[in-house]
């Protein structure tokens, strides 16, 4: 074990898989000599060479399309979007080609799209989005969103080894903020399994990504028996873990940084309403960003993104109910 930041854990996982499997290679803008916009692949070009660290032009559709072809031919490409927001430019290749080849032609498409997402640093509307819900509407894609360094490495390993296209949402705010013990060497975390981030009896916060840390901080400050479920995998969703916690506490807050309508939270709430109605002791609540783009202005951005005080207030309301 060694203590790594979330960002270092992603680099470690990627490097380990590239060493283990020669078919794994990376594509993206400035990922080679520059080492990536956030330095995830710093030093990679020296170790693996430019052939496996392809600097791509500003053409996301080309990056994803090339990756689909390579994957179908037996390679395991890992694409980096400089910002998750720009996946929109590669959307057609991702949702219409990569996601459907298995269903159309029985072809495996073992590729990963790394999506640096999230706000909190005045990145404005094009560099701060949390677009995970887009992919949930496209059957054929797997979607993961780690919250810890450990899961960042383990889930990236699993994503690379998975025969399906996997969207890997790495929250930029967690890159250097989150640190943790991470197993050395090969390390895989199964896709589709949630994690109990904190045990509790009185209520459950279901979250993923940055919202997990917001919930952990709120629970620590409130000093109440709050259970926190870190989904980790958004598709497939660990319905058993969600329902088990709801049955235990009867009170649920679903939290994420992404906007509210038709988000991951909506899907989780619908699941609870259908499968755990008789276990509910309170209305199921959501804490999310409102349905607006992320503003540049720091005070406005703070007003849009869920904050610790709001998380505490939402928990208090449910605890008192």
């Amino acid at each position: 074990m060694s203590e790594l930041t979330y960002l270092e854990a992603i680099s470690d996982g990627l490097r380990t898989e590239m060493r283990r499997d020669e078919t794994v290679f990376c594509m993206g803008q400035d990922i080679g000599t520059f080492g990536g916009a956030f330095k995830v692949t710093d030093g990679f070009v020296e170790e693996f060479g430019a052939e496996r660290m392809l600097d791509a032009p500003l053409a996301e559709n080309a990056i994803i399309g090339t990756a689909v072809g390579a994957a179908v031919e037996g390679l395991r490409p890992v694409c980096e979007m400089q910002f998750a927001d720009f996946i929109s430019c590669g959307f057609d290749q991702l949702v219409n080609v990569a996601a459907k080849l298995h269903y159309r032609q029985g072809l495996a498409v073992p590729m990963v799209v790394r999506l640096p997402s999230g706000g909190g640093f005045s990145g404005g509307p094009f560099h701060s989005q949390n677009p995970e819900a887009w992919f949930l509407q496209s059957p054929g894609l797997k979607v993961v969103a780690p919250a810890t360094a450990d899961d960042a490495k383990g889930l990236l390993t699993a994503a690379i080894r998975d025969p399906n296209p996997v969207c890997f949402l790495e929250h930029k705010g967690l890159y250097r903020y989150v640190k943790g013990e991470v197993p050395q060497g090969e390390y895989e975390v199964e896709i589709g399994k949630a994690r109990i981030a904190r045990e509790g009896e009185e209520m459950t916060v279901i979250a993923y990504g940055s919202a997990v840390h917001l919930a952990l901080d709120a629970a620590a400050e409130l000093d109440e028996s709050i259970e926190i479920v870190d989904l980790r995998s958004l598709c497939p969703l660990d319905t058993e873990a969600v329902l088990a916690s709801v049955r235990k506490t009867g009170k649920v807050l679903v939290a994420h940084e992404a906007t509210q309508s038709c988000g991951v939270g909506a899907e989780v709430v619908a699941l609870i309403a259908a499968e755990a109605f008789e276990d509910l002791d309170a209305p199921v609540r959501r804490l999310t960003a409102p349905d607006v783009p992320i503003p540049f202005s720091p005070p406005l951005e703070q007003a849009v993104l869920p904050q610790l005080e709001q998380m505490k207030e939402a928990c208090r309301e449910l605890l008192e109910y």
Partner: protein
Amino acid sequence: MSSSSTNVPPASSASPAGAAGSAQGTASLVFVEMPKMGISVSEGTILEWRKGVGDAIEADETLADVTTDKVDVEIPCPASGVVARLLVEPGESVDVGTVIAEIAPPGTAATAAEPDISDSPPAEEPDRSTFVSPVVARMADKHDIDVKAVTGTGVGGRVRKKDVLAFLESKKTNGNGGALGPALHSDSPYEPDVAGVADEPDVAEVAPPVTGAEREPMSPMRSAIARHMVESRHTAAHCTTIVEVDMARVAARRAELKPAMARRDVSLTYLSFVAKATVAALAEYPVLNSSVEGEELVHHDDINLGIAVALDDGLIVPVIAQAQRLSVEGLAAAIADLAGRARSKQLTPDEVQGGTFTITNPGQFGAVLATPIINQPQVGILDLEAIVKRPVVITAEDGSDSIAIRPMTYLCMSWDHRALDGADAARFLGAVKRALEAGGEL
């Protein structure tokens, strides 16, 4: 249902409506309270609201039907106006003095009675004590819990899952069903032997399934009788002593007085004579006119004679207060009055309380022997059975025996062996018998 019913003036109080500072707080609400319906009646159950929210109502018009475990009562509205709010659900029991409804002045819209939230201080948390969440409903169903018996600690007094869990936990540690506690009527003259009840075998578990049965819930009167009778059996050491009485002299005396009583529109019954003889014997043997309270015998100064009256769906025992002051004619008039009003539901709650000894008279239906259950906290109950002609041996003054046909009856008295012994009971019954057989003295 046909049990005793009457009009009782409701307690009411008027106070200004709306929150302090409300700009339009001019209307005045009249609060209708659960009325005091007798000395020992501490709660009442709303059977039915006669009016809905928004309905106009006149003063003294009946607003609700209320039942206690003794009688049914109609609650007249204390003021004319509009029903603003009904605060108690039908079937719900509340303490005497609890506000059960609010009447707004005539012509007011029902909603006007609501406080004006817009310009008043933050509204109080709405009462959510009756709201049941899905998980609470399921748990209550599974564990057969009355949610009303659970103390809610959630917002607005809501019963939460943790409250149900705590309730179940306390039930487990207390051993017996905690749900029994709050359901008890506080005006019960004796505390039920809860441990004894819990020890009873669970009949439901051993009874074989019955086919073709129809179930109906007990009326409040039926369940009160059931409770009182079982509790009496658990409380008193019942014994029954029986004497045979020759009613020939009573029959003669009755025939003599009857025309005069008929002119007063009172039917002179054998029961009146038995009542008179009983009152006299109670004065002679006061132990029968007592109650057992713990380790003490309470001797009552007055003889308040209860007379059991059968109703279509039950039984009620109106009381003749200070029966020692009444002649046989007075007793006859009192019995006729109480029995008539019992059947027409016109008794007041105080008229069914405070008895010190009870006479029951099912003999009118032809039965000859019975072992009645004592009406707690009394120590004796006398049962007058049918008077039938029988051949009996008569001993003349010269000592010669002969057989005669006489109107005979059995007086069966159940008594509490905690308070007295068989010799006391026999002596008392002997006194009653002598008085009746003397006849003319009554």
